[in-house]
């Protein structure tokens, strides 16, 4: 049986990689993917704790997290498309102006 803390450590590493992705990448879509990665790391912790506690709640919450992530991805990318239409760039720096 692999101890739960290993899974948690693994999810921590994934989360950190996602965070760095958000910071480092200049292309917003890749930043967005990094955020999805962070979300999945969190899902991993949920499932790991679900197994640790022996209850099913963790997994149900992952269920809802996925739904929220789907909705978020949909709306987020819609925003990026709308932004792209006004200013043909996906570079995070050039979208520093709070309005377009």
């Amino acid at each position, binding site marked *: 049986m692999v101890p739960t803390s290993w899974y948690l450590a693994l999810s921590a590493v994934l989360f950190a990689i996602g965070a760095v992705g958000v910071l480092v990448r200049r292309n917003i879509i890749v930043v967005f993917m990094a955020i999805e990665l962070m979300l999945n790391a969190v899902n991993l912790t949920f499932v790991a704790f679900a197994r640790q506690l022996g209850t099913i709640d963790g997994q149900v919450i992952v269920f809802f997290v*996925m*739904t929220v992530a*789907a909705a978020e991805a949909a709306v987020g*990318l819609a925003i990026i498309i709308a932004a792209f239409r006004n200013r043909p760039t996906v570079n995070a720096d050039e979208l520093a102006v709070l309005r377009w």
Partner: protein
Amino acid sequence: MLDQYLGVIITFGFAAVIVGIMCGASMILGVHHPGPVKQQVFECGNPPTGPARGRFSVRFYLVAILFIVFDVEVVFLYPWAIVFRRLGVPGLVEMVVFIGVLAAGLAYVWKKGALAWD
């Protein structure tokens, strides 16, 4: 609980091997004479015009979004379908509301013409 997936893993292995052979075969067996003309993108003979990866209408993107939303809906339906017999009427009511709301979403999209392929 691993036994369930033993078969899956093994099938993955065999399938990967078979498909790998199929895809890679011509690279190994085939002749190698790359030429500029041969490597030209095929456009019914005339030289390729415009940027290779030109942009296209946002319509497809909308379809992808709708697909996500309704895929999630389908995914919610599956577990419901399994335990429906035990849930009985309350389960039905629950699902009717769920499907009703999403049908409203579909109706909105339909009326807004997002699905109309002009």
